[in-house]
């Protein structure tokens, strides 16, 4: 399967994706698809991803997923509020010298894409799967669209190169590499986007 390399050049992220990506449904069994989904779920619920997929009026921070400090709020657009936007601190790339993560278009996922409940508890594998595949909630993405999102979306890519904190130690990354994540997504899509119950 293809790997993926993310190169940060100046302010841009350039993604080099090796060949791959046949998208015919039915190439993977339901069992394989469910196993692949569990892999995908393990990434989606890692702090680097789920911290911005909240159900609340705030994002989360850190591996302990505490509410983002300093009264940072979601706002109507998920980009913060007038005069106190995400862009007040988050730039298009990681700022390692000051410990601030960054990626192009830094903002919160819409509430329809929440993977936690109002008490910041992570939803079950089945619940997240259903939310992610619900086209009325997921920006109308089908399987191919989801795969492309996982391959190319800058904020997704960021999770795998999340930069360093203030103490200069690297932030923790999801349990898969980006390449493995894309591969698992592809398998899951080819299996027809099966979701575990419940």
């Amino acid at each position, binding site marked *: 399967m293809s790997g993926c390399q993310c190169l940060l050049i100046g302010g841009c992220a350039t993604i080099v994706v090796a060949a791959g990506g046949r998208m015919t449904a039915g190439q993977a069994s339901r069992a394989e698809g469910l196993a692949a989904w569990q892999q995908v779920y393990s990434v989606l619920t890692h702090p680097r991803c789920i911290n911005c997929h909240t159900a609340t009026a705030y994002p989360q921070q850190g591996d302990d997923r505490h509410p983002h*400090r*300093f*009264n940072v709020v979601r706002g109507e657009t998920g980009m913060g509020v007038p005069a106190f936007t995400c862009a007040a601190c988050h730039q298009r790339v990681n700022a390692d010298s000051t410990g601030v993560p960054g990626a192009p278009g830094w903002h919160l996922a819409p509430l329809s894409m929440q993977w936690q409940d109002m008490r910041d508890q992570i939803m079950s594998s089945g619940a997240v799967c259903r939310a992610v595949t619900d086209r009325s909630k997921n920006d109308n993405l089908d399987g191919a669209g989801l795969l492309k999102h996982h391959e190319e979306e800058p904020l997704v890519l960021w999770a795998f190169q999340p930069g360093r904190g203030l103490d*200069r130690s690297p932030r923790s990354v999801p349990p898969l590499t980006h390449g493995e994540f894309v591969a698992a997504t592809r398998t899951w899509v080819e299996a027809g986007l099966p979701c575990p119950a419940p």
Partner: protein
Amino acid sequence: MSLYIDVPARAQSPASPTYPPEAFIHLRPDGTIVIQVNRLEFGQGVQTALPMILAEELDADWSQVVGELAPAADVYKDPIYQLQMTGGSISVPHSFQQYRELGAKMRAMLVAAAAEQWRATPAQCRTENSVVYGPANVSARYADLANDAARRSVPGEVRLKTPSEFRLIGTPVRRLDSRAKCDGSLKFGIDVDLPGLKVALVARPPVYGGRVKRLNDREARAVAGVRDVFEVPVMRGATGIAVVADTFWMAKQARDRLSIEWDLSGVEHPDTSQMLTRYRELSRTTGNVAVNRGDATALDRIPAANRIVADFSFPYLAHTPMEPLNTTIRFDGDHAEAWVPSQFQTMDQIAIAEVLGLEPHQVTFHTEYAGGGFGRRTPLDSHVQREAAAIAKRMRGTPVKVVWTREDDVQGGYYRPMFVHHVEVGIDARGMPMAWRHVVVGQSHIIGTGPPWEGALVKNGVDELVVEGTADSRYAIPNFHVSAHQPTINVPVAQWRSVGMTHNAFVMETLIDELAVRAGIDPIAYRLALLRPDARKLRNPLTLLDEKTKRWRFSVPRDHAVGIACNEYHETGVACAVEVSIENARPRIRRATVTADVGMAINPLTLEAQFQGGIVYGLSQLVEGGAITFSDGRVDQRNFDGHTPPYMQDAPVEMDVHIVPSTEPPTACGECPVPVISPAVVNALFRLTGKRYRALPLTRL
């Protein structure tokens, strides 16, 4: 800061030193009048209030008045304490008379100069807006009379205005420093810049008293712009590593790359949970007795059903003024110059001189504007200045600005100490407390410091500042026993805005509220009934509070509640009513009404600001994250993320402040509102949740 020795401000002894007006007033040819302010301006408005007082008696054109912060010099010492300092809310009470006399004397000299020119008598002259008017329409500007006036001898006695003659005092005059603080032009201590200035950061041990054992500074020295790296003494016999570089950022990068092995042996490693256990045990035993009024055994005869037993705990608190600590010093061998946002110029100057091997007068000491203080800029050992002087000494000839990062500030000690209280109250048939036994446990920052403060403040082994708010309570409790344990802990502590009141007032005012609820009596009425008849300074604001809140405090919406508290501090009485609801598991203060008896209100606009501000500062005790805790000797918090102050949403949405009309001399202001807000809010919360909150700060409700 409170280092209040019980000398009424009015008592100016006849032997007090005289103050030459020319040291305080400069009348420029262009009409500007520059007035030297013998205090630090750190937000409280003294650089407007003291010039106002002087300008009043001088009959100066206020629009031409400029205030400057005076450098360190004998003539600028507090007239009663004979130390140049800002704290204890003494600035206006102690300098009120002094600045009035300065203004009146200068006015008299100007009038005498004009009268002589016109061959008139002073009685034939009057003054207004920086002009002397003589008989037959002659007049002269102060600016034009200045030289002549300066040659005259300073009168010994002068007539001061009666309050009815005031044109400035008592009016809402806007601050003199506002515009410069709004356009970025006003320089604070941290903004000082000089030719050849270097910046120093210090790596201090993670446990107080630790020492450098081994240093690897190879990586640090490789950072561009680093000038030197060396060991320095830091407070309490500890040592640290100073990094001197061209800029703050370079110094910080270098300091972050130091590899230091610390010797942390031989010093106590404070630990919050261990301390809590130890303090609670101590609080169950009698300490050094501060008050023993009536019958100490009366409580034992009251049945349990008529008793309240309560335990309280309060964490360490950092002050976190917005401008981090800093000092700039240049040492030239036989002389030094210092630029310091200092709350304690006299002691700081002495400390710098001591480290540099100079006499104090050989240290030219400039007072810079400070971005807040709240008690942090005047620990009694001047450790910030001592450290900076040691660095300046090593960097002889080069001005060095030592800057504390916010992390250094949050972790650097000199906190409001941690306290535990154990209280037992016996209630009589009327619902009033008839016996009260109270043990306070917590560090004293005065014991062990020697003269002058220890002798003045420590009696029978009790530091007054540890028990103020309880021991000096104005409630008429016939059998009243207060004692204190003051353990020695390896955490440097200092005064935090309103000092002992911060915890004692919380305990008193929440317990009083509990008693009022039990008795079924309105909390304001209960207090008025329980206060001693002579507690005028509390009765006045409570009565005014009742009047000002009658309209709303009995008819708040169902999910709102009202809480009341009051406190007297340095002869100023404050009362507060808050309307609170719960939003996002936090108290939401919809409104606060604050009343105060401060004697004469010099500037109602400043007073209102100080009260609004002090209320918000007091909320530092309540907000989640408002604690400094220790684990195995190390401070758990690093910055505002861990030690969180009140933000706008934590502050009352609306606040109205009302001053009791008075013509008595002005009493304290700056610290007075701080103690009342936390008990008022938790008293309201009780009515919403049925819970009494006795361990601060609050967590999610």
